[in-house]
């Protein structure tokens, strides 16, 4: 007999009414082609209008619908009901304060993202009339995968170092810093180094690798951070030997 319905256990939290978050169960229809997001949308539309959560594109490019489903951080639009048992536990992303229901406060990440200067710092500013900053395909290839980050924060949810110490700059921010450091058009590595090469920067990472395992865009932030450690170490010893050239 094929499955007719699934039970969702969703963590609810109303800051004005609840002391603490608590699970609430809902029975939703099972559809072969539904993702967890479809099931959650069904809850909101048909069963409980008070449920709050973020979502937008429903196609794993906007990064809005990150949640923890049966203990694993996933994009709700990317997790098919058919891959889960009859009862599914849904919680907000770990390691972020819970605003309400499945909505988390991501201000900490936004601050950290800004702190790594995630924009091109060119050698010389060019006016638009002077044309583009040129780059060859192999130069693009070196940093291409790190451009794929959609800021979904699944990596922060999975990262135990961020859980243990929230001062950690974190996988996505550091991977993005690395993306710009690798970009041949950019000379901003020195400007980013104070954040990247600080103790809460790459040095907080112990290469657990959970971030890369959960990343839906195969950014591989763990690899980015290890490469950044090597670069930071190189700069450190270079600065020791040639302090007048301090980057």
């Amino acid at each position, binding site marked *: 007999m094929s499955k007719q319905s699934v039970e969702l256990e969703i963590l609810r*939290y109303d*800051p*004005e009414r609840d002391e*603490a*978050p608590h699970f609430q169960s809902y029975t939703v229809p099972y559809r072969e082609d539904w993702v967890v997001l479809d099931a959650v949308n069904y809850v909101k539309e048909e069963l409980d209008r008070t449920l709050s959560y973020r979502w937008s594109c429903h196609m794993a490019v906007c990064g809005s619908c990150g949640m923890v489903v049966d*203990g*694993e951080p996933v994009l709700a639009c990317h997790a098919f009901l058919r891959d889960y048992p009859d009862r599914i536990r849904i919680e907000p992303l*770990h*390691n972020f*304060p*819970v*605003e309400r229901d499945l909505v988390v*406060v991501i201000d900490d990440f936004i601050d950290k993202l800004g702190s790594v200067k995630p924009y091109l710092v060119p050698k010389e500013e060019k006016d638009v009339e002077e044309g583009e900053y040129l780059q060859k395909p*192999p130069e693009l*290839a070196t940093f291409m995968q790190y451009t794929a980050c959609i800021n979904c924060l699944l990596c922060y949810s999975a990262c*135990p170092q961020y*859980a*243990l110490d929230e001062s950690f700059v974190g996988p996505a921010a550091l991977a993005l810093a690395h993306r710009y450091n690798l970009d041949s058009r950019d000379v901003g590595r020195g400007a980013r180094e104070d954040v990247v090469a600080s103790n809460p920067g790459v040095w907080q990472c*112990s*290469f*657990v*690798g*959970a971030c*890369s*395992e959960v990343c839906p865009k195969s950014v*591989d932030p*763990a*690899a980015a951070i*290890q*490469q950044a*450690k*090597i670069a930071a170490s190189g700069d450190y010893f270079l600065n020791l030997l040639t302090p007048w050239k301090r980057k």
Partner: protein
Amino acid sequence: MSRRPYRREVSKTGWWLTHPRYIRYLLREVSCIFIGAYAVAVIVALWRLSQGRAAFDAYMASSHDTASFAFAVLAMLFALYHTYTWFQVTPKAMPLVFAGKRVPGAVIVLGHWAGFIVASAIFWFLMAG
């Protein structure tokens, strides 16, 4: 509407029990205890060596009891796990590009295992020779 964000507590000692990938991580990290203890044991053996035949023989004899053997087995298992996990992450830290193409991680890992066999063979040949 008043905001009152809720911080869910995470066990600082037991967080790693919540998922197999964290257990594997901690197992990898804990390998250093056995590797470090083994290195210390070797250093102590060198120290005993410097103290003369009697001291060295006594130390080597004491290393043949059951507890020492059990430790040696554990140390070997953890050392191999360290090797396995270390080789696994090396391609990530040092991506290789050859003839314009990214060398697949599996190739780098295989190369490391080949190097492991070579290094072990050289060591054995030098020490057992």
